[in-house]
């Protein structure tokens, strides 16, 4: 298994109730999975647990056969090799598009970085946008920058949190197809969290419904 989650449980400190109870999931390499559920079902929390932004109460997460978290291990988010696209993209406002994409690239020469950034801009159809600032872009373009930024360091898994929630309804169909094409051409294992069944069906290879 490429990604393996077993017996995951999580609850916020100030409440007794668990958001996630005994969650299990197995994902093949290159698969696009969609976690579908209503808001408050804890689907975004699953992403945050995989990324290492929250610490689970119990359970195990393995990525590429490496345990990233269990009862005795906790790999920090920066060491997990997981890319994440946040719901509101979280593009660094003080950096240009190019610098945003370059941000996660380390141990590369300047030339290699430039090449990688150009490659990523190409992938998300934003050639020539490298010198713009995030606020100069439309919502859809910002999302593609966030995607490029997450993909640039070549993560082993990509996590997308509600990727369509901040976009216009009529753009959605176009962007869904676009996103699926980008993900497939990058060949990356992906987990998408959404509350919309149409979105899930359009993009994902497999849908996991999360019920509370």
């Amino acid at each position, binding site marked *: 298994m490429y990604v393996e989650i077993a017996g995951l449980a999580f609850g916020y400190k100030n409440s007794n109730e668990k958001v996630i109870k005994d969650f299990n999931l197995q994902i093949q390499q290159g698969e696009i999975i969609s976690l579908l559920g209503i808001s408050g079902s804890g689907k975004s929390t699953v992403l945050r647990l995989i990324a290492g932004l929250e610490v689970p109460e119990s359970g195990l997460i393995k990525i590429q056969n490496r345990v990233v978290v269990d009862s005795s291990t906790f790999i920090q988010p*920066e060491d997990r090799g997981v890319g994440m696209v946040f719901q509101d993209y979280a593009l660094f406002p003080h950096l240009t598009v190019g610098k945003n994409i370059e941000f996660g690239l380390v141990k590369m020469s300047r030339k290699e970085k430039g090449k990688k950034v150009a490659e990523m801009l190409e992938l998300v159809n934003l050639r020539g946008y490298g010198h713009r600032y995030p606020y100069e872009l439309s919502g859809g373009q910002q999302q593609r920058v966030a995607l490029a930024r997450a993909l640039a360091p070549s993560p082993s898994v990509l996590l997308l949190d509600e990727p369509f929630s901040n976009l216009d309804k009529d753009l959605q169909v176009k962007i869904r197809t676009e996103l699926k094409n980008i993900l497939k051409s990058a060949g990356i294992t992906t987990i998408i969290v959404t509350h919309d069944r149409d979105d899930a069906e359009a993009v994902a290879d497999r849908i996991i419904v999360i019920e509370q």
Partner: protein
Amino acid sequence: MFRHWRSGVTVWGIISGMLILFILFPSSTIIGNVFNETNENWLHIKQYLLKEYISNTILIVVSTGVFSVILGTGLAWVVSVYNFPFRSFFKWALILPLAIPPYIAAYTYTGLLSYTGLIQTFLRNAFSLQINQKHVNIMSIEGAVAIFSLFLFPYVYTITRVFLEKQSASLIENSRVLGKSPTVIFFRVVLPLSRAAIFGGTSLVILEVLNDYGVVQYFGITTFSTAIFKAWFALGDVDTAIKLSGLLMSMVILILIIEKLFRGRKKFSYTTTKVRPIARIQLKGVKALVAFGCCFVVLCFSFLIPILQLFHWALLTYQKILDPEFLGLMLNSVIVAGTASLLIIIAALIIGNYSRITENFIGKAYSKIAVLGYSIPGSVISIGIIVFFVAMDNRFFWLYKIFDPESSKLVLSSSIAMLIFAYVIRFLAVGFNSIEAGFEKVGKKFFEASRTLGMTVTQTFFRIDLIMIRQTILAGFVLAFIDIMKELPLTLILRPFNFDTLATKVYQYASDEMIPEASIPSLLIIAVSFMAIYFFHKVVEREDK
């Protein structure tokens, strides 16, 4: 749970913990020594003087509190509910009295009202009027209360006004629709509704009063501050100073507890989205004149008159005052305030970043402790710090000897480090609040995005956080810098021998009966504070819109 600690966070936690320990040291020396064996001085004070300290302090605190509430809420109400000529000017001008530290106000009014001062001279020369000196004696408890109320009421005014404007528009309008007159609304709706805000502002006023030394000392009133100073300077009796500090601190704690109880779980901050301003009532004729008059009279006494008097004196004395030595004073002020503010910002960034990342109990406790110093009166902090530094000197005397066989025993406790350390403890809250607000505004998503892109906590801090909150860092620095420039009690006790700042020079001139000579350093201090107030209430308010 320990898994959580294996990361860059650990380093931040350790450094924060050390900073917190340093902040707690002086207060804990007070607490640790407060029950030391009693000596003769203390017995004497307890038997004959303590009652006076307590009654004077309470009298001043309570009266100032009452008058500040009357001035602050009354003016806040007038300015936010009615429309009259110059309303928007008064709206922010009524904050200006805060630019004048009470001790400068006290010296100015003393000079103004004295036998040789402008007012009496004028009355004598123009009308041959001889005034009974009893009627113009400002150097009394009543005088101190007047000074404190006039120059500290803006704390109540500002908080209440913001609350009225942004929180209660719909409630006030509803009551108006129900046929209540504005006066009834004020007493039956606004006062009860905004009591948390009012009490928040008042507790700031009270803490300032308890911190004061310049006014009460000059007016010859014995309060806790003056008693602590006397025990230390005149009697050289640390134990008694500590005992008095302990008592004063328990008063402060009592006030903080009362404030907390009043506020309950309500925070009087407002939600920034979709606040609707009150539809103001247009005043005409006499009523408009009365509203204008109220604001104008208060502003005259609490800002315009003292400022004009200071300028007048400045014209008389500038040739005598402005010399290279004065430049040295300014430089001293700027250097100590700058160094301390820089340290404050660094400490605030470390503790602030740690507590926002961990979000656990320790982080929250740290952020609570970081702002504690602002409530502790300067006299208490100084005694705590002296005891702490002397103890350090005793401990490290052997070390000094290694470097310099001739070394005196008091190295740290006679250095400028002691003063700067005290500034950091007392004003850390100013920088910390600003930086915490910055972190809160930016949120954690950029931090998290950076972590998932492979950056550690520390890398993220330098590459993302620091840049994103740079404005609030600057704001925190400026605010701390100004507070330190104005500061008097700490500076007086803890400055090294022969080291003067603008504030201590003002104090010294006034003590030497040279009030006009104090005008130029006073005006400089006021000018710096004025700029900060202008900047924050004009620029920041514009941003809010």
